[in-house]
């Protein structure tokens, strides 16, 4: 649409996301991905599909890598495929919508790989990016700590410079997949004190399989499942070659990493299986209640997808989309949290993760995951603060 309205404030552009361009290559790819998924994950039950985010399956990730569908936008010399942002978007949204097990690759593909590509040393890129692109390298995110949640700048984990590297001491918390991961991108303090806030922080590439002085302890989530962990470093030696980017520039690097983390379609597609089961259960219904509910959810989904593709379009053009990504993530979390509430108002039965009825099992699972939607990757309140800043209020 024409953007030449001189008199309107710059906010106009912030709230009016760009139109995603028609992309024939991406649409052709969509068919291939659907065909691939129809075969590869045909055996997964709806409940297993609902676990998509948490579904850990290295074989599936390798199969995806073998098709050239990981590290898609990266340069060929690092094992990438030099495909467009829109093509990558199609792969991500199709795997999520189908409920494929993405947990063994998605952190690496979405944020760790791009962070290394942007800030990593040549040696790091050459060693690791091809492995991620093959679906052969699991990453975890070492940001949160016991006393640094939303206030990430309060991190206390400290890397003391020593001969040939650092000695790291501190505790990372809520680290998803730390028990499976090959690497962590650790956000920590390399100089100064917590009072220095953004100054003196750095990112280190931690080898999770070969770092002495590091212990990983499981933390069960409210559903009794083991996904996240506590990772404790006790004077653990990290070689100097592990520094990502510039020492002391960790804050701006981690903000860039969070922008990758927040911008994708997973922020509103992680509960798709519940919506699909609900549509299946209500199919052909002439209940006005059912029609109103499915109509509303569909309208939300279509708007979210459009917004999210707008963000992808901005990223493809090299624009800063942090305000827009926060809008999509905040709206997406609300949508996904409403979904189980709406579903349960339409089915007269109790949610039960062990039910033989798919809808009830998926409902039980989604209800128990829902609180995390507005916490993980930045809480609702933090996102609204980002949006308010984008509007010039702070």
């Amino acid at each position, binding site marked *: 649409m024409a953007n030449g*309205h001189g008199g309107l404030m710059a906010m106009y552009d912030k*709230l009016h996301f760009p139109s995603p361009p028609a992309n024939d290559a991406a649409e052709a790819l969509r068919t291939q991905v659907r065909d691939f998924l129809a075969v590869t994950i045909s055996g997964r039950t709806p409940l297993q599909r609902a676990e998509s985010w948490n579904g850990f399956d290295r074989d599936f990730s390798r199969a995806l890598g073998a098709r050239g569908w990981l590290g898609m936008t990266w340069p060929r010399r690092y094992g990438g495929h030099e495909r467009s942002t829109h093509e990558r978007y199609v792969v991500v949204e199709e795997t999520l919508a189908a409920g494929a097990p993405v947990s063994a690759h998605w952190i690496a593909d979405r944020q760790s790989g791009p962070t290394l590509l942007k800030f990593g040393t040549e040696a790091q890129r050459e060693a690791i990016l091809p492995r991620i692109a093959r679906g052969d390298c699991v990453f975890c995110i070492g940001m949160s700590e016991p006393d640094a949640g939303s206030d990430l700048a309060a991190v206390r984990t400290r890397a003391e410079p020593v001969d040939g590297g650092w000695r790291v001491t501190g505790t990372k918390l809520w680290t998803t997949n730390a028990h499976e991961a090959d690497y962590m991108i650790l956000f920590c303090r390399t100089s100064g004190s917590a009072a220095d806030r953004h100054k003196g922080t750095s990112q280190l590439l931690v080898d999770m399989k070969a770092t002495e002085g590091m212990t990983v302890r499981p933390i069960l989530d409210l559903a009794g499942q083991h996904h996240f962990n506590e990772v404790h470093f006790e004077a653990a030696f990290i070689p100097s070659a592990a520094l990502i980017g510039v020492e002391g520039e960790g804050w701006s690097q981690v903000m860039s990493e969070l922008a990758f983390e927040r911008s994708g379609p997973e922020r509103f597609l992680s509960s798709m299986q519940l919506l699909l*089961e609900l549509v*299946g259960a209500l*199919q052909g219904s002439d209940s006005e209640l059912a*029609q109103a509910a499915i109509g509303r959810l569909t309208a939300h989904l279509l708007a979210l997808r459009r917004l999210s593709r707008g963000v992808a379009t901005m990223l493809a053009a090299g624009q800063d989309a942090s305000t*827009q990504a926060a809008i999509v993530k905040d709206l997406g979390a609300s949508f996904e949290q409403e979904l189980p509430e709406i579903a349960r108002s339409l089915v007269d039965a109790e949610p039960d993760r062990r039910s033989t009825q798919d809808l009830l099992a998926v409902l039980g699972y989604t209800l128990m995951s829902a609180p995390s939607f507005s916490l993980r990757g930045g809480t609702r309140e933090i996102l609204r*603060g980002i949006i308010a800043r984008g509007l010039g209020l702070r």
Partner: protein
Amino acid sequence: MDDTDGLLARTTERLLAEQVDDAAMRAAASGLWLEQAWSAAAELGLPLAMVEGEQGFGVALSDGFALIRLLGSRAIPLPLAETMIANLLLARAGLPVAEGVVALIPAAAGVRLDRQGEGWRARGVADRIAWGRNAAALVVEGDGRIALLTSGFEVSAAGTNLAQMPRDQLTIDGAAQVASWPGLTLLEAGALVRAVAAAGAMETLVQLCTTHVVERTQFGRALSGFQVVQHALARLASEAAAAAAAADLAVDAFVASAADAGLAIAAARSRVGEAVGVATGIAHQLHGAMGFTEEHRLHWFTTALWSWRDEFGSAGWWTRHLGAAMLARPKAAYWPTVTAV
């Protein structure tokens, strides 16, 4: 004509700023027809902007909808958007375009098109027709046909919507020029126009609120300094963004003549309808008592939004319509439909 450089948009904006100032807005709310503003807009060619070929200006459709959004962002009390879309549909049906204000009469209004000798006649009573009292022509739909009437109708009861824009009952009994019509229904076309205009008005709500909370001081600081105010505005902005995205989706589907354009329009109306409720509530809350007065400009936008969201089919109806369409397909078709719209 291609408006990629935004020349037409800028010219239109200037014209609207000159012609429809606050005094004109108040005059229109008191029931006056803004003849001067209409003539200026007509002289610029807005009523025929979207008409392709010799009869019109052939502005790219997406640019045409950007103008409609602009009209909405100023809550312009003139039937420009309706007339633009009506002329576009007339031309597409192979009928002549109309001079002056055109009103849309969707099939649901129940006006009948009957053969009469060689020609056709339209008969019936249509309720809540936008600017019926000013209409020089009507576009009527019925039985897969579309008709142009330039006479044979009169206002049988005058009314307005919540924004004091005329919504009149027309009694129709006149000769009509008729063409077959396989395209989008007039209800869908009208609904699309309202969704786009509403997205524009919601953008203005964000602007009015941002300005207000920065300027208004309480407890010794600007309202914008309170986190709860920041978060309310963030929510308003998000709803405005969602409404704009939903409207854009529908516009793109319309422009591409997509098979699922009807679904996209239904989704836009559903999403916009919900966003309006949230956004207008927040906007009034942030403005305090001042925003609850006739004097303040805020109500031009909120009252228009409260009306637009339920014109050409209520938001509730569009929501159920979309839901029924999605539930009529097998579960396996749900996601493919979402990506195709």
